[in-house]
């Protein structure tokens, strides 16, 4: 089996947002939406801090679809539009999506965005990878693990562009992959483990 995933080294992550924009560009993501966000943990402003001056701390957390083994979104999708594919990615069949947004309510990671209106793009043409389907009004969308790129054997655009090499892409089912080794050696963890969603995206310090 194949379980494609990303592991993020939070020590190396500098919160630069490059991955967030790389994703927006590659996937032709419309105005006001992001499939991948980099948040300053626990803060209501970007580059904020926790603690009291001068004992402060800050950490950045890039979040997108966690490509869960047990996806909460898939369980609630009434049409089967959301599915787990043969490479272990969680994908959406846009033709089957009826826009009920059950998946959005179910996802504990707030990974999904919705086309409430006719999508507006700036610049006003379809940028990004030409293989990426253009989503219409009324469907949910989210990180596909760069399905089009990974199908071609390339790494996801966020991984390719990360300036500090904080991101590692690979197959969790291959014990010799760099990602599997990193997860073991660096004691990687997943977000909201208690939700039982079994994310494939891992984080480590």
């Amino acid at each position, binding site marked *: 089996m194949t379980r494609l995933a990303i592991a993020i080294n939070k020590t190396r992550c500098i919160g630069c947002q490059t991955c967030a924009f*790389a994703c927006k*560009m590659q996937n*032709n993501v419309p105005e006001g939406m992001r499939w991948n966000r980099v948040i300053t943990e*626990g803060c209501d*402003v*970007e580059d904020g801090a926790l603690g009291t001056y001068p004992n402060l701390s800050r950490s950045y957390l890039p979040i997108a679809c966690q490509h869960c083994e047990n996806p909460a979104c898939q369980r609630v999708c009434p049409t089967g539009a959301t599915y787990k594919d043969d490479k272990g990615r969680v994908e959406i069949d846009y033709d089957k999506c009826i826009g009920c947004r059950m998946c959005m309510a179910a996802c504990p990671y707030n990974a999904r965005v919705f086309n409430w209106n006719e999508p507006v793009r700036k610049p006003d043409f379809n940028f990004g990878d030409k293989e990426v389907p253009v989503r219409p009004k009324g469907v949910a969308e989210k990180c596909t693990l760069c399905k089009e790129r990974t199908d071609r054997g390339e790494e996801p*655009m966020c991984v390719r562009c990360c300036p500090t090499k904080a991101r590692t892409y690979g197959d969790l089912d291959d014990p010799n992959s760099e990602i599997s080794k990193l997860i073991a050696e660096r004691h990687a963890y997943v977000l909201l483990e208690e939700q039982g969603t079994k994310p494939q995206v891992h984080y480590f310090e």
Partner: protein
Amino acid sequence: MSGATSPHAGMTRRNFLKTAGVAAGALGLAGAASMTTADNWLAPAEAHADGEERVAHLCHQFHCLTGCNLKCTIRDERVSIIEPSDLAEESHQTICLRGIGEVDHIYAADRIQTPLKRVGERGEGKFEAISWDEAIQTIADAIKSAQEQYGEGSVFIRKSTEASIDFDFFGQLMKADSGGNWGLDRGQPNGTAAAFGAFSYCPNRSIHEFSDASTIIELGHNPLESGIVWSRALMDAKEAGVYIVTVDPRFTGTASKSNEWLPVLPGTDAALIQGMIRAIVDEGWYDEEFIKSKTSLPYLVDRETGKTYRSEDVMCPNPTVVGMLTVGAPYVWDEAEGKARLYNEEGVQPALEGTWTINGKEYTTEWTLLKEWISEYSVDWAAETCGIAKETIIALADRYANNGPAIIDFGLGGPDKYTNADVLGHSTSILVAITGNYGRKGSGMGFFGGVGVDDPAATVNYWTLPEGYGYTSCGTAMYDMPYNENPIHVALTFGDAFTLEAAAANDMLNWVKSLDFFAIIDIYHSSAVDYADIVLPACSKFESEENVKSLRASYGHVMLANNLIKPLFESKTDLQIERLLAAQWGLEDTLPETYEELARFMLDGVEELDPRMAGITYDALLQQGGCMALPETGPDYRPDGTADNLPTPSGKVELYYEYLTDWGHQFPVYTDANEAYASNPIKEQYPLYFMQGKSRYRIHAYYTACEWFQENFGPYVNISPEDAEARGIQTGDTVRVFNDRGEFKCGVHVNRSLQPGVLFMAETTYTRYYDEGFLQNVTNSHREDRQYDMYFGPQIPYNDVLVQIEKA
């Protein structure tokens, strides 16, 4: 894994949701009511998958000091994907958000589309479209009439930091005034120039040696947001266990990645460094061997006059860096022979301390004088002045001196932008030299990341104009033109010089308004555009009339932009604009006709000048897609910079600044900043320090126009919760920031990263995105007289500012 101890224990579903929106904070953006809107200028591309694609490559930015080669996928003649170049050497296949954001930025609504003529008042921003012919004619007429009426020196032409600066022909053809001293980024270099050489702020060892250091001090430097790609070296060091200390009033990204954050009071960094020097001298933690063999500290100085004892016959190997005078070789006291001998004589054993009478004059060593100088600064004084505890200063001194090798990486923003930055640079030079943290693996000093020897440099030819053409100077720097009498009547700038390269914008813009004529060439509707009489639309670096564009030597590669899109709207390349202007004087043939001609010229015959350039020809470059690495480029490139034969008069680190005797600054006398100091009485009215610095979303004001970035970021001032609460200010409010020089209104973020008493704002954003005014309205235009005698002249003290803030 137990939830309670996991590093993300604070993450709840609510947290995710709270920060879910794209715009995590208030943007407070005024709608960009642009007459040049690009909305719907392109019909949406239809069938996504059928579009015809080709690939272009180019060197991106150089003001981030990286210059990545970027691969652009062009579909239906639109730049659709920008990603790291696979033509670059593997470790140089990089990009940051600013490269990616170009996909929107190229097509942004703020693009100037046609030549414009002002129809409203200056500053009002009312224009009408005119033809290129009319625009060029109007500019030429204005220049010619000023030249006839007032002479050549009445014309001011400058390329700012944001225009394409591949070349600079037209201003020279006009023998225009280019505004002299820039006054930017050379505050600390004013203080390091005489010690280690004029350009010693450019490190002589690679940033990739960060991992070989034991300790790195980030002195007011925040590479995580400025030179983004370079922070990979810092993160490598962090993972290798190097101890990182960040000195910054603000809890920056770099501070957050450090083992220790020292929040100095703004403008007091020199006190911290002097406290460290004191501790090192007191404790004997200095490196005597290095001091004797590599520095000027054993040189003899006449106690009475303060002059160095020099030979009248034997000259120093290098002309002096600062005065350009040839000076005699200095004497030391040779312990072996018990007499004064030239410092570089065979077998000389210099004494470090003592007093000797020679020919009736009393001499001592620089080292003795240094000890006397530092005895006036106690660590307690340093602690009180900079706000860092005495024990912390001593511990840092211990770590730096005794747990080397250590690197001091100083920023050219932050502490550089106070009037006492020269004192800081000189103090840092002393700290580095007495501990021997220079010229060996894992040590060094300077601004790391792009300006040093991180990558091998290429050799190219530079296009020259015929004899007799060149810039002139009236002796007044641009930043002083509002204050000093000057002959300028007409100005032409490529990009925004007036609001970016001067403080106290009300003064500068009033002066601009008083000119007979001002024209600007810009890609975007930048802050200065509204003041122009004529505006010419330049195209972005992704556009060219021909297949190729700029040839750049950057990041260990030679890069030729090629396969680009055609200029959008009615814009033109800088080269064609310069040629159109030059043609008004019949001088266009002094310029290359095309970028191809220029690029071919730049590479013609370079192989003979530099064998490393073998094979890097115009044709080979094009054939390979436009990017070729130099032979040494790679992850292991580590130049072996030493502390020998430095570009100082004697070739040693020269720490005693005899040339500043009139100012009493032979050693760096601690001086308060001009405005930003604790006991300044105007604090009663303006109690808050106002700092500016880099944001990941900008290179200066560039990328203001990027709509993607506008979703995350806009002009807002950051304030500590304490200061905000005292004023009833909350995130999302509009605030007014003011002092006697002016005011502006914008959004606000209440942010714990701020030291109480300090405001921070990222420089900078086109004025139209503010609610009113912009940050440069409050900044300080003071010049420090002492610095007129220094290598880089007085610098603009952008951070040396006090203000008050209130809810608007």
